[in-house]
């Protein structure tokens, strides 16, 4: 048992030399849960303002993509679990452009991000979490 502990510490030491995921040691004060979105598509809705549809569409691309997360930013720190909670949700946001009014409809998958305490202790589990997350990416 003692030997095992020693060995697994060595493994951690070895792995942490250069692999991009890092086993977690310290607790952090992050919120325990968070929602994020991965935007798949978007539309412009002039909402009666007469905004040009083409320009609106381009600008909504930037606006909606800005709301989208790169899931690796959530997985790479390690110690988090990602759950898909909804697909193709339509989120309506104001275009927020000083020169043009209207709304953007961002179509996104919704994910719940949750501290995965187990994987904070056992790096191997977080490797599994990575695999899961790469399934999401596909």
């Amino acid at each position: 048992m003692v030997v095992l502990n020693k060995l697994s510490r060595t493994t951690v030491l070895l792995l942490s030399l250069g692999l991009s995921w890092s086993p977690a040691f310290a607790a952090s004060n992050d919120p325990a849960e968070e929602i994020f979105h991965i935007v798949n598509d978007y539309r412009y809705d002039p909402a009666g303002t007469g905004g040009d549809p083409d320009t609106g569409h381009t600008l909504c691309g930037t606006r909606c993509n800005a709301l989208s997360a790169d899931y690796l930013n959530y997985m790479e720190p390690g110690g988090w679990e990602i759950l898909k909670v909804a697909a193709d949700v339509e989120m309506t946001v104001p275009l927020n452009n000083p020169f043009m009014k209207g709304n953007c409809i961002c179509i996104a998958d919704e994910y719940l991000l949750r501290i995965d305490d187990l994987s904070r202790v056992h790096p191997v589990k977080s490797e599994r979490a990575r695999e899961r997350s790469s399934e999401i990416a596909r």
Partner: protein
Amino acid sequence: MKFLLTVSLLLLSLTTALAAEPLPSAAEIQRLGERMYRDGLLPSGAVMKAFVSDDVPVDGTAFTCVSCHLRSGLGSIEGEVVTPPTNGRILYQERKPYVQGAIHVPLIHNYAVYLPERPAYTDQTLAALISAGIDPTGRSVLKAMPRYELDDRDMAIMIAYLKALSDQPSPGVGEHVIRFATVIVAGTDPVAVESMLLPLQFSVDRKNRLAAAAGANPRVARMGYNMLGDLQSYTFTLARWTLTGPPEGWRAQLDDYYRKEPVFALLGGISPGDWEPVHRFCEENRIPDLFPVVDYPVISDSDWYTLYFSRGIRQEGEAAARYLHGMADLIKDRAIVQVIRDTRRGRALADGFRAGWQATGHTPAIDVLLPAAEALTGERLQQIVAGHKPAVLLVWDDAASLPAIGALAGQPDRPGLVLASGNWFGQALWTVPEPLRELVYFTWPWRLPQEDARFDISVNKIFAGKSPAAYDPRIVRQSYTTGEVLGKALMEMRGEYHRDFLYDTIGMMTDMYYPLYERVSFGPGQRYAAKGCFIVQLGKGEKPQLERRSEWVMQ
């Protein structure tokens, strides 16, 4: 049959030629060979004649050896595409589908498992491979590689060049030790210096502890070997090279340090201003420098040896241009005004914007220069706005400009948006009053703070009992990344510690997610890893968060 005859005639002529022709000096071979290998130019200056599918002529300066075999010639594996080493040391050895000495270690394998066995090359069979695309087993490689028509003398130079390529370990690599140094420009804020050093020293110490543990315990050594191969038994050293006085005097100091202790690479480094002399020193001595902490990197498409985090301050200006480009149709003929604080930082932001804006073919912005010491008052800014009626006002100044910007809020012909540097505003960014938050946009060259906090878990371990509050969190994160990228690269180098291979290896890495930058990406010859910058606004409420208004990399 005819084919075989050609090959044997060729071999015959080469045998005689290679023996007869006197070759230029070693230095000249190096220069001429490198030009063939990297630029596709013959010693005569003419373009190398290259053919694909045996007889289709292609541009020799496009199909260069380096474009496939990379600078080190040590081979690459990228997805399905395997390019074998093309340096003499490996070519003149028989190829077995395993690495000598690591036969039973499945983790330690390389390109050799993907290609058939072959005997060692000789000068003659190597010449046949290059000119006819036939390997020593008689197998054609023309599906994967062009063939090149070289006369005997040029062929001999090419072969001599390949023999010297990545032959000896680079300077700074000793038996079981790899030496590094970091450059500190005297006068840099001591907190910044310590923040840069701490993560580097942490990586070095961690590596050395592992080497010591492996030396003491065979089981650890075996596991270490399985993970890291040769690297496991190496220790690292990190020297501190401090540069004093004006930049003109740095070169002599660097040369002196380097003469006393040649290092494999520089790690990090820090300067409050100039970096150019260090950059040049690295270029001329072919010494890699991974990620110096500087605001004004040398911007170059072709320089090789310094890898920067980003294009520095100017990258924020470039991002502003890309963001506004997306709404150029709406701005139409209205002016864009850049109010530029006449300091290095102000000018760098303005230069970045100017370059980005003009590259997309727009009418140049109107520049208004503010003397370094003159306060920007509300009246002055209102005057500027009244004079030019800009659609967009860029304020490249520090947070002291905030009250002046505030004075615009009620003005009827105020610009549609004001853009400033979130980096330069610093902590004051969080104090932008609520009524202004809709008007003011900021460049933000990092991941959003609320999202970066997740990386504390990995970064905090480097503090090992020290108080994080005593360090600059951004510099710590930058330097942490340096240690990670170095560790990852050295692991993948499989015992071949050559400087050019370090960059070849980094160039093959996929995008990575480290603290601070939303994403860092590499690629052959790419030297500015973080290619993005967000445009953000401060959200509503008492404890506002930054809200993204753009993607990280805008097209």
